[in-house]
């Protein structure tokens, strides 16, 4: 049979893998419709993810995990060769950590290895520096499924081994480690999302942030379960899983939108876009839904998970000692800061990219996105609606998963009722519209932009002098000055500067040493052989003589 000689491969479906399959289905369908359906490697990539999700034994899990990495490496390679080897290096590093973990007895070392391996693949800090580089490289449909799906498969492995396989041996500090990694990812991810100029790198930064949010949720759940508080564990798990579902919907939507922008204007750099809403109204409308999710605005798909997560963290702040209290308070501050940063990034993405005046001829001449891409985006937007307006229903669907992970839990009903809130929001809006319709002076006159008194732009700049327009870098400049001087050293991501570059320098030094060995002459090579022989004989002599 297929698989290990003599043992073959075993698949099985339980509530957890069913949920993650459900997360995969809409985004795979959308990117297949949006044009990726024709590529064989894409379907191999999907098969790898499905195999990893349905794996029952270690071989199948690693087989699926690495098949997924191999196929996505090829797609990244075809896109842009630069980050391909870094990407596949991290993918193999994560498999190299997972394989030992699956064969060690359940315990702290095994969980740390799972955390390291799956964390590297999911983009948890400090191993996240590759994600903003690799995810923008392949075509939009692929980076949509990479950010939306592949990252979830890595988190699935953490959940599977954190809660189910090593459930009995779980300790509170496991949760704390996951929370620390998650918090770092949230901060760095949202900061990168706010400061990046490239559209797809911006979205990849936001992926790192949402992975951090999910990791924080899982960490709080793991810690609560280990400390024997199933209610809080259930609440945190609901937050994490709902965030995974929501992110799996609006992020691919945004990536497909970015792909449509690249197809229409040939660039994804925000400083060259602007006023796309005029040329691409439908794609713009759908991007608004995605941006609402990314910014976690109420009545949008992203708010329910953020709501639950903040309540879970507040609940967790009550438990544990003084260190836990200070830690969770700082975590709350970090979550608030990154929520506002995510809002800023979404507003910057929509405001600079889609509203305002075009900053290049391409942006001005952008035509509507292709129909299949719009169809894909519409499908995802349609799936976002139930998560946005009926999160209670989605959480009810997830009940069996929560019970599987935290057996003694009774998930509490959701305190956030978006439908009633919608009434409170749209009621006054409708009233205001009607009142204005009746009393205010109707009609509107088209006038040139006042623009602080600047004169009418010259003829050769029909859409206005770019200097008088806000730019993406300009929008992020105050924040860069206030926040990132200490958090983000000039050379780029801190994890890159303090983790990746030193390792690269070490590798260079050892390679130079190996080169010197390779360049040795015949006599020196004989000396190596002879020296090794004499050492072995000495070892043998001492061993037997002694």
């Amino acid at each position, binding site marked *: 049979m297929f698989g290990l000689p003599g043992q073959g491969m075993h698949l099985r479906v339980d509530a957890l893998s069913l949920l993650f399959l459900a997360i995969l289905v809409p985004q795979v369908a959308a990117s297949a419709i949006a044009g990726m359906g024709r590529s064989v490697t894409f379907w191999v990539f999907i098969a790898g993810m499905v195999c990893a999700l349905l794996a029952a034994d*270690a071989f199948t899990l690693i087989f699926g995990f690495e098949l997924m990495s191999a196929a996505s490496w090829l797609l990244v390679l075809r896109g842009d060769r630069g980050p391909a*080897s870094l990407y596949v290096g991290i993918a193999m590093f994560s498999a190299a950590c997972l394989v030992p973990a699956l064969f060690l007895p359940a315990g702290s070392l095994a969980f740390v290895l799972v955390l390291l391996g799956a964390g590297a693949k999911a983009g948890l800090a400090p191993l996240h520096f590759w994600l903003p580089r690799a995810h923008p490289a392949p075509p939009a449909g692929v980076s949509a499924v990479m950010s939306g799906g592949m990252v979830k498969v890595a988190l699935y492995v953490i959940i599977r081994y954190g809660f189910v396989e090593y459930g009995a041996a779980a300790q509170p500090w496991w949760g704390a480690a996951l929370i620390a990694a998650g918090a770092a990812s949230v901060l760095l991810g949202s900061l990168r999302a706010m400061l990046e100029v490239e559209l797809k790198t911006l979205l990849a930064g936001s992926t790192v942030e949402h992975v951090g949010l999910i990791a924080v949720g899982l960490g709080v759940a793991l810690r609560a379960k280990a400390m024997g508080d199933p209610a809080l564990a259930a609440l945190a798990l609901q937050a994490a899983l709902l965030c995974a579902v929501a992110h799996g919907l609006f992020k691919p939507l945004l990536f497909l939108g970015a792909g449509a922008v690249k197809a229409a204007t040939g660039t994804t750099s925000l400083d060259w876009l602007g006023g796309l809403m005029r040329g691409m109204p439908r794609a713009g409308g759908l991007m608004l839904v995605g941006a609402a999710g990314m910014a976690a605005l109420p009545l949008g798909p992203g708010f329910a998970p953020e709501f639950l997560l903040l309540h879970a963290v507040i609940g967790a702040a009550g438990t544990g000692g003084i260190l836990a209290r200070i830690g969770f308070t700082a975590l709350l501050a970090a979550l608030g800061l990154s929520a506002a940063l995510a809002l800023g990034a979404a507003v910057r993405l929509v405001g600079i990219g889609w509203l305002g005046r075009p900053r290049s001829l391409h942006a001005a001449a952008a035509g509507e996105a292709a129909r299949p891409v719009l169809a894909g985006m519409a499908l995802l937007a349609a799936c976002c609606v139930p998560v946005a307006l009926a999160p209670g229903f989605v959480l009810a669907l997830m009940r069996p998963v929560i019970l599987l992970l935290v057996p003694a839990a009774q998930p509490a009903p959701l305190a956030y009722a978006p439908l009633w809130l919608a009434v409170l929001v749209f009621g006054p809006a409708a009233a205001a519209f009607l009142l204005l319709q009746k009393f205010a002076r109707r009609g509107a006159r088209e006038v040139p932009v006042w623009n602080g008194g600047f004169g009418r732009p010259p003829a050769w700049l029909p859409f206005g002098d770019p200097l008088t327009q806000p730019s993406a870098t300009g929008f992020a400049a105050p924040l860069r000055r206030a926040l990132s001087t200490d958090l983000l050293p000039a050379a780029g991501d801190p994890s890159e500067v303090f983790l990746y570059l030193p390792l690269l320098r070490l590798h260079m030094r050892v*390679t130079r040493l190996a080169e010197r060995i390779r360049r040795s002459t*015949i006599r020196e*090579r004989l000396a190596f*052989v002879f020296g090794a022989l004499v050492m*072995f*004989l000495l070892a043998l002599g001492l061993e037997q003589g002694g």
Partner: protein
Amino acid sequence: MSFCLLAVIVPLLGAPLLGLLGTAGQGAWGNLVLNGVIFALTLLAFADPGAGLIHADTLGLVFGALTGFVGLTTAAANIAFVRAGAATLSLRRWRVYHAMCQVLLGSILLGLYADNLGLLWVAVEGATIAGTLAVSLPRTASALEAAWKYFILGGAGIALALFGTMLVYLAAQPAAALGPGLQAMSFAALAANAGKLDGALLTLAFVFLLFGYGTKAALVPLHGWLPDAYAEGPAPVTTCLSGLTLNVALIAILRFRHLMQANLQAGGDALPPGPFLLTLGLASLLLTAFSLSRRRDARRFFGFSSIEHSGLAVFAFGIGGAAAIFGGILHMLLHTLVKSALFQALIQAAALRGDVAPGGFGFAHLRGLLHGNRWLGWLLGGCVFALTGLPPSGLFVSEFIIVSQTIQRAPLVSLPLGLGLLLCAIAIIRNIGPLVFDPPPARTVSAPASPALALVALHLALTFLAAFLMPGFLVLLLSQIASALQ
């Protein structure tokens, strides 16, 4: 006249025939016909393994069949090589080249089928001398230097192996059943009553044998000769066929390891062979991990990759236990298939780019093959990808078995193993981009695919089937071998 004996004699008789008559093209076709006959004989050998000096056990038969098959496909690739590189060598040298192909094949089969230690040693020595002459054929200075290095290092290794063989004979003297004469030199007899051998002498013999056959298996620090031997000399013999000599040496090491292990388990005072093998295996893995990144010549680059994989096989034997040995043997099988397919594809690529001499295999020359010939580009990319051990490639299964056994039996060693595998895989996969997808160098012509590419595809298919869909009888066969050699 057992088929094993026939399979050994046919190439050794064919060698002088090809050496004396026929043009380069006729020599290539002669080679193909002879290799076809040999392949048939190696398959028939399963029925009648023969007795006495040349009597193959199942391990020898399996690898003999593999050698026959790879010999056949290499001969097919050789035709394209000869046609493309006809001008590089004179007529006399072409004849010597075809003769050396047959001598090399004959010595490999002798090494696999010989049950006698002395015959095994003679076979390995014959392979070394044939290889040295083949490497020295082109008239360039670097080929001469590579051949000189091959001869000195190979000769030193051979001398150590001979000394080890004598010590094994000496260790077998006190055993009541064996006594002097041929009986004390046959693997089967030695393995049968390993308990009665003198353990301490056997350990000393094992050190010398490990260094002797380790040189032939290109384990670090004995690997000096391989990268240059692979890079110089006519491609088919110095890469594909010399890849098969690695298997002979690895199987010899496996058999001697079994003698030590059996003596240890039967209460003799032999030392456990594990640490010796682990040290050399890890050294090979780690040194190649750092030597792969700066290579500009494809054949030298994949030569280092061969050192890495033979190091991994020896590492698996060092771990010990039936499963690890099963993984090691499977790894040798799959690696031989993939590596020979890769070199054949490289030969096709060099033929496409028109320069089959040793200089023509630089990565700069072979850039952007996808534009030259779609099938060749994808297949070459597939072969290089198969070397990395990522899932669609069969090596994933064997590396998975080895790593999982390492974690269960020697967890601490799994750290350097993981690091070595990771770095080697990254260094290899970095070359696929430029090799296949980059824009080709200027003024390169694109040519239709030659039929030999189908053989390369056959190799890859076999690797996938042997790894993921291994048929029942092969699983049984290999697990019997593994448990026998535990």
